[in-house]
């Protein structure tokens, strides 16, 4: 390879130019894709909200509730139809998954029952824990479904731990984590409801 002579000056100039052009190119691409990336994220979120709630017209202002560990936040999206509150979409999470963090969008209606959910992010084992996105809303098997159920009247634990929900076969840890995330969503929903009724009573 007949490159330039490897003296100090040539090396410094070359590296400077290479990194300078690279930085310029990246800055340009970043500016160019910034909006599309933000849009794609927002779209994924609103699609998830539409999936987990029955039909609604518009979303109200988003609330953020601090999780009990003080670090993470749970987002609550109230949904309205004809100015009537029809339910909340709650973006909840758990760190207890088989591979750690799981993020779930859960829908809760006015009476506190779950209307649907959508797993947004997870690293669970493909073919085992990853089944959770279908498992807990299987209408043919009501024992494992969480749809239409309420943590007040139903024990949100896997049957193995004495609860009322059938966990995923061979994925008890994922199932526990999933139910933990839903209970966390429900607690956030309850807090929100308490605030609402409190202000209405004044």
């Amino acid at each position, binding site marked *: 390879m007949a490159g330039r002579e*490897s003296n100090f000056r040539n090396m410094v100039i*070359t590296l400077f130019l290479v990194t300078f052009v690279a930085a310029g*190119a990246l800055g340009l691409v970043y500016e160019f894709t910034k909006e*599309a*990336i933000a849009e794609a994220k927002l779209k994924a979120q609103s699609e998830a909200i539409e999936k987990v709630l029955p039909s609604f017209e518009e979303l109200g202002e988003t609330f953020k509730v601090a999780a009990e560990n003080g670090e993470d936040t749970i987002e609550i999206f109230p949904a309205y139809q004809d100015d009537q509150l029809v339910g909340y979409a709650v973006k909840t999470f758990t760190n207890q998954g088989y591979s750690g963090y799981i993020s779930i969008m859960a829908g809760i209606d006015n009476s506190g029952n779950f209307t649907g959910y959508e797993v947004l*992010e997870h690293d669970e084992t493909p073919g085992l824990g990853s089944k959770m996105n279908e498992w807990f809303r299987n209408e043919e098997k009501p024992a494992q479904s969480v749809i239409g159920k309420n943590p007040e009247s139903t024990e949100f634990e896997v049957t193995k731990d004495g609860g009322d929900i059938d966990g995923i076969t061979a994925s008890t840890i994922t199932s526990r984590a999933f139910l933990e995330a839903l209970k966390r969503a429900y607690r956030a929903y309850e807090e929100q409801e308490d605030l609402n009724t409190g202000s209405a009573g004044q």
Partner: protein
Amino acid sequence: MNQWKNFTKGFIKENPVFVLLLGMCPTLGVTSSAINGLGMGLATTFVLVMSNIVVSIIKKQIPDKVRIPSFIVIIATFVTIVELAMEAYLPSLFKSLGLFIPLIVVNCIVLGRAEAFASKNNLVSSVVDGFGIGFGFSFALVLLGGIRELLGSGKLFSITVYPEDYVTLLFVLAPGAFIVLGYLIAIINRIKKD
């Protein structure tokens, strides 16, 4: 050099996965389905071709002693461009591949071609080499991903082929990747012998 030979060598004779055994981390990591393999293969192909082009153009301007850092910067730039573009325009593919895209930077296939081929050959040969090796890599990943998906989840390109009750889950998990790869390498070696 015969350009057609230069192009086709990446499929069997110098296939980066089955023969050179380079880039094993993304190979084993992403191939749980055919579509993931295809996405990863095409992303790598883009980076390969672009970095081969740039390296073969500026090879004369780069002092020998700093060529590796220069190549790495060039490759990393293209990888980041792919990552940003994929996140913006193919968010669902990004969701399943996101973790592995930055790893293309340290994929020895890309640096290997820049160092061993593009820095010694002219522009046209380097482009052809980039496409050849890139498509060879994609072909290997799709084959591996397709077999694992078919055996492990009963689907091919996300279309159900047979019911999930009969699948062998092992194949979508990590050990399945090694098993399938081992058999494929054995088959390729047999074909090469003839």
